[in-house]
């Protein structure tokens, strides 16, 4: 197991960024880190959809996020003066990094947490990237003899139908899930719905909502104890910003 996050990644992927910091009280965080060990707090950030909203939230909370991060292709950026280092990860891998402790904390959607079922602390509902997990089908759907459900979330789908007492065949797909009912691969799909735009355009309807999704702050079991002050202080700042927002 690699305990050094930098290990195995080329030197060009590693860069210490000092410019463009938007932070107010890094001193406190740095001091907290000093007290809880000399290591940087390693944060796994999800690339893509959630990233923009998450980095906005971090900035609002006065937490350091390198400003050149938004359009960088670097995988690791260290901010030693802030006591933090950021890892850019594929969203679905964030819980894995955190479970193994190669990242201390991470940001990830509830959909991924439900599907991956990793042993991590779920500390905070960040209230961003809101959407829901739903069962979707054609408007004229009728029960079929051998139900087939296509999804990117086979664990979530299996569990949901099991709890309903229905035995269905779950088909794992990696993208364009909406295709499945249109071309007859499956009679229903389980997928994330944000605005419902894609569904409407393809003549599909949302039949049932399974659970609501927002992004969560997660922490490694050991880091949560060994770097508690740093993590708690970060948590509090985020909580403060989230609490100030309506319907959070």
């Amino acid at each position: 197991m690699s305990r050094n996050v930098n290990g195995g990644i080329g030197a060009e992927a590693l860069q210490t960024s000092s410019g463009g910091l938007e932070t107010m009280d890094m001193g406190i965080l740095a001091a907290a880190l000093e007290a809880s060990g000399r290591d940087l707090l390693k944060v796994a950030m999800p690339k893509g959809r959630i990233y923009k909203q998450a980095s906005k939230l971090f900035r609002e909370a006065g937490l350091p996020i390198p400003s050149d991060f938004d359009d960088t292709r670097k995988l690791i950026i260290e901010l030693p003066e802030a006591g933090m280092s950021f890892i850019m990860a594929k969203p679905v891998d964030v819980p894995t990094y955190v479970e193994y402790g190669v990242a201390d904390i991470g940001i990830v959607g509830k959909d991924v947490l439900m599907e991956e079922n990793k042993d991590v602390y779920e500390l905070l509902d960040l209230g961003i990237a809101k959407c829901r997990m739903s069962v979707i089908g054609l408007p004229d759907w009728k029960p079929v003899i051998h139900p087939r459900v296509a999804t990117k979330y086979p664990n979530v789908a299996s569990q949901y139908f099991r709890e309903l007492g229905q035995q269905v065949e779950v088909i794992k797909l990696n993208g364009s899930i909406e295709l499945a009912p249109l071309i007859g691969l499956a009679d229903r799909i389980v997928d994330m719905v944000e605005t419902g735009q894609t569904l409407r355009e393809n003549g599909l309807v949302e039949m049932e909502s399974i659970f609501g999704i927002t992004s969560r702050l997660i922490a490694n079991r050991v880091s949560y104890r060994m770097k508690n002050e740093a993590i708690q202080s970060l948590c509090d700042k985020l909580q403060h910003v989230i609490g100030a927002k309506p319907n959070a």
Partner: protein
Amino acid sequence: MMSKPKVFEKPIGVKDYLPHAVVKLRQIENQVLACMRSWGYEQIMTPTMEYYDTVGVASSTSDRKLFKLLNNRGTTLVLRSDMTAPIARVVSSVLKDSQFPLRLSYHSNIFRAIEEEAGHEAEFFQTGVELVGDASAEADAEVVALAIASLKAAGVDRFKIAIGHVGFLNGLFEDTLSGRTDAQEELKACLLGRDYVGYRERLRELAIAEPVQRELEGILRLRGSQEICLQALQLSSNATAQASIRHLLEMWDVLKAYGVCEHVLIDLTMIGDFSYYTGMTFEGYAADLGFPVASGGRYDNLLKQFGRPAPATGFALKTTRILELIGDSESDLEERVLIGYNDAGRALALAKAQQLREAGTVVITEKMEQSTAAEVTAAAEQSENGEKVVYKGETFAAFIRFFGEQEGASL
């Protein structure tokens, strides 16, 4: 899905330990066991297999994580999934006439059927103790202090022990949600699953008075040193909760006397399996390792399942993970000496080898051609680090030749 295994493959979750790793593992094992012995804990060994219906059912390991097999009579057996349940069996049967308290230690391989991917091993080593027959806070503190001493003996430098108590939450929930067992179970399940978001959501759904809700949310922050206990005392007047906190405060005093409080953290949200642990529980964390290195607690209900009811407390170090942690530092295999001889020199050579071995040196002997011996000597003389001899890929501290009646040049 699984095709016929390739010759190099072994079942998922099991490991080979090569010489350098074994040296380290033995070192950790010996140092930790010596430490435990110096506290009066005597080592015992139990069989790898136990009956499913006794030890298997009594163990804290969930059923689906047990390795089960059938013996030739069709009885279900398990590979031991911890040492606590087998020791409870021994204490209640073989040792049933021994007086309490009993202090026992073990170093043993443990088997758990893995569910997911790596990091969760199917066979691993645990080194631990059980203190049976003493219900006092003094006994709990002794076990925690010994866990700290053991981690130090194993060579772990930076670590913390978080201590909690199942009684506190039980009491607090009984108090604030009396009669609503479903709600209590749900909240506990959230805490056990480390789902703080879910815990807060459940609380909001419960329709309880605002101050109570805030109080129950507040426990997520009950983490620190002694003052946390004092805060918690104010939080609930429930007798169970109060007794739990008093127990922790007593433990704190004892741990202070041991001089180990710098390593200890009180964390009232830290709960072990409620159906198994009955009192204080704790976990040990080391810097730079993503998984806990030690866990333990009080389990006063286990021994009565074996017919000798008694309070008990203990812990296990996850030795395999400690190996992962300190295994990076280069371990030195002992210096070795190579003795080369021919027929005429054999008796002298082997006598010399025995003499050196008795003195504690590692000696390898080999019958070889005189020309080979000359080459080895010549190569050693030319090599830059003059003292070392390299032969067949191995490095030796010295080479001694016995060709004829006399000892040759000793390098």
